[in-house]
């Protein structure tokens, strides 16, 4: 390829070609002949994503996160650490927030999954999406889909009366105070540090709800 055209490669294409190159090397054994590929196990699963039913047959190792992004092309859900530490991959499963990177797709037979694409659309934003825009609840935006999915679930958890680590009482109805929101959102990391604005966006939505 002409070197001057290198910039036309998108970051994703670059990553794909790098991966292929590495895989190609790995398949060569010492004599230079191609090794037999490792047999891959496949299995079936069906669930709905944002109301749409899907029947899939896939490599057993595929996480829910990779299924959403690479197979269903719902790229709103982001891969951050891929180890359940950052929260960028947060989605709602049967109304509960989970790290989609720490879940096999196969574990979700008959589940109802909601991603950021299912919460709202550019024309009809979810109130939490609108509040994030109004309060500048992001800078680079990479963690935002996970933050918003988590935030929606947090308000539902408070409304349902579920206590947190910072609740003074285990038995009284918790309130959406700043401390409560920060504790409950601790599984969503934001490297840009938009935390205070995220908490303000959530407070506004919580106020409207009550």
């Amino acid at each position, binding site marked *: 390829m002409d070197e001057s055209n290198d910039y036309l490669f998108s970051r994703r294409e670059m990553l794909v070609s790098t991966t292929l190159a590495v895989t190609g090397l790995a398949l060569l054994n010492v004599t230079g002949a191609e090794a037999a590929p490792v047999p*891959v*196990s496949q299995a079936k699963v069906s669930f709905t994503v944002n109301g749409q039913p899907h029947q899939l047959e896939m490599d*057993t190792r595929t996480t829910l996160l990779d299924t959403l992004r690479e197979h269903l092309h719902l790229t709103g859900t982001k891969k951050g650490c891929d180890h*359940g530490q950052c*929260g960028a991959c947060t989605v709602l499963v049967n109304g509960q*927030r989970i790290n989609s990177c720490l*879940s096999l797709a196969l574990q979700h037979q008959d589940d109802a999954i909601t991603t950021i694409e299912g919460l709202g659309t550019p024309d009809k934003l979810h109130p939490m999406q609108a509040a994030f825009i109004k309060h500048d609840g992001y800078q680079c935006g990479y963690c935002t889909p996970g933050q918003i999915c988590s935030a929606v679930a947090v308000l539902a958890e408070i409304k349902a009366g579920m206590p947190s*680590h910072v609740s003074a009482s285990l038995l009284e109805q918790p309130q959406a105070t700043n401390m409560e929101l920060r504790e409950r959102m*601790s*599984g969503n990391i934001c490297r840009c540090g938009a935390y205070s604005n995220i908490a303000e966006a959530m407070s506004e939505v919580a106020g409207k709800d009550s």
Partner: protein
Amino acid sequence: MKTFTYERVRTPAEAAAAAARTPGSKFLAGGTNLLDLMKLEIETPAHIIDVGKVGLDKIEPTPAGGLRIGALVTNTDLANHLPVRRDYGLLSRALLAGATGQLRNKATTAGNLLQRTRCPYFYDTNQRCNKRVPGSGCAAIAGFSRQLGVIGTSNACIATHPSDMAVAMRALDAGVETVKANGTTRTIPLAQFYRLPGQTPHLETILEKNELITAVLLPPPVGGVHIYQKVRDRASYAFALISVGAIVQKDGTGRIAVGGVAPQPWRVETAEQLLPAGAKEFTAQLLQGARPTKENAFKLALVENTVAAVLNEARH
């Protein structure tokens, strides 16, 4: 991740039988720890038995007046169960102090008990670790050991058990109900459930191969003030440096189990007779025989001070 075959089972007995049938299999419940370890190829099962939908997701009262917690009850559901919040507050508090909302929604009761250590040398496959590769040595003892164990450890392993929930369960005298591949069941007191590392740190519990946890049993509530005090490097979403799970009665007697110091929740029943005398006397006996490293010796004082704070809080 290494490739594996996969099956879903419908009953606990089916699960145990499937495991006996297929060498190299592992049970998968919530997956929050196992999948992470599989990505790092620290766990490499050839076959996954998904027990997620075998119906062990209920919390029921027992005839004795306690609770039977299904093995698959999530940390969220257990922490929020009203009788748990009311009568076993220590358990709710410990659960809510652990992990994040997302993880607690998937992590299960049995999975929490069986989660592996977070010792950084166990996670780093370039390092020597007797727990990960038996006989390879322990890089932690002369390494960064600030987070690691001070008691119950050995010259082969100083890893800690990372669970908050297990600390509460230990103070509550929980029992672990299981089914074996041949269909027989048993209940193991949590006090006897974990093994100390000795020279075999890769063997962490007394469970037999293919034995499946079906429930955790709590005896009837004992009243008292329930406190779980966790000390960590940040205020949320961090493992404990140390934690103190306490049930203190009006007369000053009580029970205390401690987390973050040992390969299992650390409780010494005979030391509890010293609780009315104070934190210093109690902690001296609780941690008798401790062998801290230079980096984690602070944990001894931290336990004593935290016990003092907890006893003080219980009086008010």
